[in-house]
């Protein structure tokens, strides 16, 4: 029981990181119907940005709250700029092209970032700077609640609240919702769709940046290929929850984190990576629109 609760806590904390990344996928998909393969590598670049900023400012070995804030800011800015550049240079020229072409471009961008990253950052793993001290804060019924888990949960919840505020309470958010419902009509109503799409990329990638710092904190080893599998799992989480749906991405992320933790704990860790895709195939067979997604009928 005690073990189970501990795994539950770990799973939720891992799942909320998945949720942060999944949000980026689901937002871009909601607005462009594009699986943004490059998202996982934007996240990777975020981790490296935090790494380099930390060594530049001399924060490699001074865990604390201020370090966390600096790294978060660095990673968010780097991710936003990169995503903005990708959107402007690779996706925008293809706005009117068939979807397949944009998908291939996204894969191309993803590969480019991976291998360019290997050339620039080096292929060998690097040690992520210490962000916080991992102390046991409280012990409830034998379950250790550690700083990392609390920090991950707290940051994720804050990010969700901010995101919720942006999407439902601001003018920009209203425009985002309008563009994702119907791009043509939104642009006729005077919404600058290009700007809104760029803004969506910024928001999604900042969340990926936050996610990358949290992952770096929990598993302090980063390499240029770290994004691929993690990103795919986050994408599966987004599909699981219903792609295009924001609460769905959060739910999917949590389920994903929990099930992965449970498989590692009670079955075998070698099947951990196959699990995500197993879930994906099952969900596609039984409920292709995802748990919280709406199924759409295609009209001619």
């Amino acid at each position, binding site marked *: 029981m005690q073990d189970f609760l501990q795994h539950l806590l770990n799973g939720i904390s891992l799942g909320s990181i998945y949720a942060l990344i999944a949000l980026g996928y689901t937002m871009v998909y909601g607005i462009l119907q594009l*699986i943004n393969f490059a998202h996982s590598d934007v996240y990777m670049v975020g981790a490296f940005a935090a790494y380099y900023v930390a060594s530049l400012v001399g924060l490699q070995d001074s865990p604390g709250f201020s370090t966390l804030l600096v790294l978060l800011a660095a990673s968010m800015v780097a991710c936003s700029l990169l995503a903005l550049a990708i959107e402007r240079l690779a996706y925008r020229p293809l706005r009117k092209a068939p979807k397949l072409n944009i998908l291939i471009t996204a894969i*191309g*961008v993803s590969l*480019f970032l991976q291998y360019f990253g290997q050339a620039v950052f080096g292929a060998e793993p690097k040690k992520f700077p210490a962000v916080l001290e991992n102390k046991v804060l409280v012990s409830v019924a034998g379950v250790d609640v550690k700083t990392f888990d609390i920090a991950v949960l707290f940051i994720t919840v804050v990010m969700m609240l901010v995101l919720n505020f942006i999407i439902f309470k601001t003018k920009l958010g209203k425009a985002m919702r309008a563009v994702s419902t119907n791009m043509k009509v939104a642009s006729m109503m005077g919404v600058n769709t290009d700007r809104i799409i760029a803004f969506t990329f910024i928001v999604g990638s900042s969340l990926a940046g936050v996610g990358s710092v949290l992952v770096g904190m929990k598993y302090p080893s980063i390499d240029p290929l770290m994004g691929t599998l993690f990103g795919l799992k986050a994408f599966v989480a987004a599909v699981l929850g219903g792609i295009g749906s924001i609460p769905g991405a959060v739910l999917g992320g949590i389920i994903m984190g929990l099930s992965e933790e449970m498989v590692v704990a009670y079955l075998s860790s*070698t099947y951990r990576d*196959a699990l995500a895709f197993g879930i994906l195939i099952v969900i596609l067979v039984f409920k*292709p629109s995802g748990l919280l997604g709406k199924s759409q009928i295609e009209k001619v």
Partner: protein
Amino acid sequence: MTALRALKIPFLSFLVLIVIAFIGNFALDGFVQLLSIYVLINMILAMSLNLVNGYTGQFSLGHAGFMAVGAYSSAWLSTQVPFLPGPLQIFNFLLYAVVGGIMAAGAGYLVGLPSLRLKGDYLAIVTLGFGEIIRVVLLNTPAVGGARGFYGIPGPTDHDLGGFVLSKFLMGFTHAGFWCLVTFFVIWRLMESSHGRGFLSVREDEIAAEAMGVDTTQAKVRAFVLSSFFAGVAGSIFAHYANYLSPASFNFQRSVDAVIMVVLGGMGSMSGALLAAVFITVMPELLRPLQQVIGVDIRMIIYSLFLILLMIMRPKGLFGKLELTDLYKRWKARKS
């Protein structure tokens, strides 16, 4: 032109292939011979993927997974079935290739049926996921070597036929070339048939195709299963010529290579896919000296940039839907 037209008859082109094999046997060194077999394998892979990604307009990202199924099942079978004596063992390899293909086709059916009902980009993810699942399963199956890899797979060997040596290359090249021709003619004839026209209509407009009475899901599944079959065959040839398999040789990278071949050549152009297969197989070898100087795998950086630029500037691929013969006709028309 009449000489080229004669090549449209499968038997004649097979004869030409055997002549090429003999020339290669005596004129080329071992490394180029090995490379030429890999070119043939990649050609089969590119043509089969072109059937799904090019002609049917779906997007599969897990071709390496199907290749792995074919390779491993064929390799496993070859350790179980006794070999025919001497040069007759070529029939063994034909059998293994067919079995490997059928296993891969079965896997393709299982994967394709649920995911092909959905929109294109889901298929990309499901096939990608399938490729990963296959890899993880192979890693955890001790019967086929697990993570160590599958050693000692029997392959073609040299045979002395009273003074004439039937070399490993001659046998391997003929076998691979035979399947390459089979793939080519099957897909080519298929695309001229009503089934093939159905595939094309699915690519052009799914709703319109359905309205005209094409069972779109069936068409997609058929294309997918056939494509997986040939991927499995390619895997089988690879397994027996390399004599060694490891789950790492069927990673995501390999699927991406296949996709690049199709996209580069032009989605829906058989000759484009063939040329791109040659290009993609030979280029890493040409880049090797450069890579040794820089010390970085520069190949993938070039590929990915190529992919992005191609999509932006020439979205239909280098050849588009045109075949080499179309280009030749155009060139002739311009000259006269």
